[in-house]
C-alpha cells in the first residue's frame, strides 16, 4: 500500500478516518512490518539531508530523539541491552521481564491504574553500536524501536539516538497508543532519555521533590 495515498484519503474523508480508527489496532499490527523496513535502513523515499529522518518536516511516523551522554558507548549499550534496567529510567514502564537473550515482556502503565503488556523481540544487536526490537505478532500494541550509540565529539561521550515507531499509515493508531501510554510517545521518549542520561552520568534520577504549601501534596511525591 502506498503510504502517502492512504494518508491523503484518511485526512480527506471522515468515514475513512472512522474506519481507520475502528481498526486501529489491526492497522498498528500492519504498521509493525512497515516500521521494521523503515527503521532498518534508509530505503524508500529520497532523503538528501544528513539529519535523522525523524527531524523531517510535516507528518512524521517516526519518533526520534538524540541525547549525548558523557559515558563510553559500551557502558550505555550494556545498560540498555539488559532490558530489565530500563524500568528505572522509563517513567511509564512498570517492569520489563527478560525472557531470554532476544525476548522480553513489557508491562507498561496505562490510565486508571491499569497496565498494558506485550512481548518484544530483539531484531538487531551490534554490541556498542545499536539495538533494535519490535513487539511480537500476537501483541496488542504493536511498536518497534531502535537505539544507536554514536561517537560524540572527542571527550564528549556518546550520542544516543532513540527511534521508535507507533504510528501506522492513517495516523489514528498513534494517537490510540498515546492514550494507552498516558503521554505522547515523543514527550515520553524525550523525558525517558533525559532520565537515562541523569542516571548514567550522576548515579541518580534527578528529583525536585520538596515540601510546599500545597496541602494535597506529599513532600515525597513529584507534582508535575
Amino acid at each position, binding site marked *: 500500500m502506498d503510504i502517502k495515498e492512504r494518508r491523503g484519503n484518511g485526512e480527506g474523508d471522515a468515514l475513512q478516518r472512522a474506519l481507520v480508527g475502528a481498526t486501529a489496532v489491526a492497522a498498528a499490527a500492519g504498521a509493525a512490518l512497515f516500521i521494521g523496513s523503515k527503521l532498518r535502513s534508509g530505503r524508500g523515499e529520497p532523503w538528501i539531508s544528513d539529519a535523522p529522518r525523524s527531524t523531517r518536516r510535516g507528518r512524521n511516523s517516526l519518533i526520534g530523539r538524540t541525547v*549525548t551522554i*558523557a559515558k563510553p558507548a559500551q557502558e550505555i549499550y550494556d545498560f540498555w541491552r539488559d532490558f530489565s534496567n530500563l524500568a528505572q529510567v522509563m*517513567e511509564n514502564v512498570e517492569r520489563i521481564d527478560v525472557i531470554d537473550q532476544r525476548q522480553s515482556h513489557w508491562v507498561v502503565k496505562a490510565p486508571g491504574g491499569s497496565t498494558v503488556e506485550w512481548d518484544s523481540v530483539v531484531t538487531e544487536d551490534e554490541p556498542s553500536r545499536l539495538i533494535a526490537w519490535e513487539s511480537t505478532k500476537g501483541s496488542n500494541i504493536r511498536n518497534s524501536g531502535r537505539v544507536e550509540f554514536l561517537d560524540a565529539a572527542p571527550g*564528549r*561521550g556518546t550520542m544516543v539516538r532513540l527511534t521508535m515507531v507507533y504510528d501506522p499509515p492513517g495516523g489514528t493508531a498513534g494517537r490510540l497508543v498515546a492514550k494507552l501510554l498516558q503521554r505522547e510517545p515523543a*514527550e515520553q521518549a*524525550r*523525558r*525517558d532519555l*533525559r*532520565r537515562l*542520561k*541523569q542516571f548514567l*552520568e*550522576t*548515579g*541518580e*534520577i*534527578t*528529583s*525536585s*521533590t*520538596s*515540601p*510546599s*504549601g*500545597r496541602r494535597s*501534596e*506529599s*513532600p*515525597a511525591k*513529584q*507534582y*508535575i
Partner: protein
Amino acid sequence: MRALTWQGRHDVRVETVPDPEIVNPRDAIIRITSTAICGSDLHLYDGYIPTMRAGDILGHENMGEVVEVGAKSPLKKGQRVVIPFTVSCGDCFFCKKQQYSACDNANPATTSDMSETLYGYPMGAALGYAHLTGGYAGGQAEYLRVPYSDVGPIVIPDGLEDDKVLFLSDILPTGWMAAENAEIEEGDTVAVWGCGPVGLFAIQSALIMGAHKVIAIDHYAARLDLAKRLGAEILDYREVDVREALFEMTGGIGPDACIDCVGMESHGLGIDNLVDTAKAHTFLGTDRPAALRQAILACRKGGRVSVPGVYGGMADKFPIGAFMEKGLTLKTGQTHVQKYSQKLLEMIGEDKIDTTFLISHHASLEEGPSMYRHWHDDQDEYTKIVLKPGMERVAA
C-alpha cells in the same frame, strides 16, 4: 516546619509545611541559619516569572547547619555550609566546563520541557525559583533539602560569621562574574547600572580586578552612597543625562565595559520604558530592558557589555544596529556559583572583600512577608534583608 510561601502576585505567607526528606543518595538537609531576600525574588513577587505555583517555598540565598545526609553525600552533620542557588550535578558536559548554571541534569525530566520550548534547550536548575528551573523548594524556611550536596555546598571554617559568607550563595559570585564577563583591562572605565546588591558587588569586584574608574548609576540615594563608599563615581539618572554624562566623564571615548545589574524590571525614564511598562502590565511583553538599551548605546566602540541582571522573556527595541556597528561583545548568564566559591571564600577570609556593608536589616522568618513589602516599596532604606529562622520575632 515553618516556611515562606509564594501565593500569588504581592502575596507571600509564612505557613506550616511538611519537613523536607532525603530523596536521593547525594542529598543533604540543612537547618537554615540565614537566608537572604534577593532582587530576583522581587521578579517572583511581582509575578513576572512564569511557572510559579501557589505554595512554592521561596529563597535561594541560603546557609545553615547540616542535619541529615544521604548515603553518598560527603557532608557531615554539624558542618556549616553555604548553598549555591544553582543546582549542579558536577558530572555533565557543562559542569565539567565549569558552566554550572547550565547543568544538563539538575532540572528534572518533567520540568525541563518548559524551558526547552521557551529557550530552545532545557535550562539548568535553581533553588527556590520557578518550575521552569526545576521547582525546587527554597530556603526561606527552617529546613532545606540540598540536592547534589557533594557539588554545591561550601563548608565554612569556624570563625566566619553568617553575614560574612552568606552571599557566597548568589550575589557575591554574581557580582564577581559580572565583572569577569566585562573583561576588565588596566586603565578601563567600567559603568555599572543598578546599585542593588549585585551592582555593589560588581563595583567592588571591578575595582579589585584593576578598573581605573567605576561609574555607578542608580536613583536611590542610599544605594548611590554605598557605591561611593566603595570608591565609585556616581550618577543619579534622574538628575543627569546618563549617556551625555558618561561621554563627558570618559573624555568622549565611552566606558570600556558596561554592566547591567538591573534586569527585566528597569525603572528608567525614557519613552521606550513607558511603552514597555504598559506592555508588561497588559501581558503583551514581559521584559523592560531600559538599562540594557542604555548600556549598549553608552558603551565605547569595541567595548564589552555584561548582563547579570535577570531577563526572562522577550524584549523589543533592542539596539541591534549600535550593538553590531560598534563591535560590542555581550556576555550574560546565570552565575556559575561553584566556579567562584573557593576563591571568594579565601578572599573573605583574608579581608579582601567585605560583604557585610550592604546588609540593612535582619529579621525573623515570621517577619518575611512584611520584609518583602519593604524590599519592594522602600528600596532606598532596605538595601539587603537577611532572614534568620531561629531569631525571635521583634516588632518591625
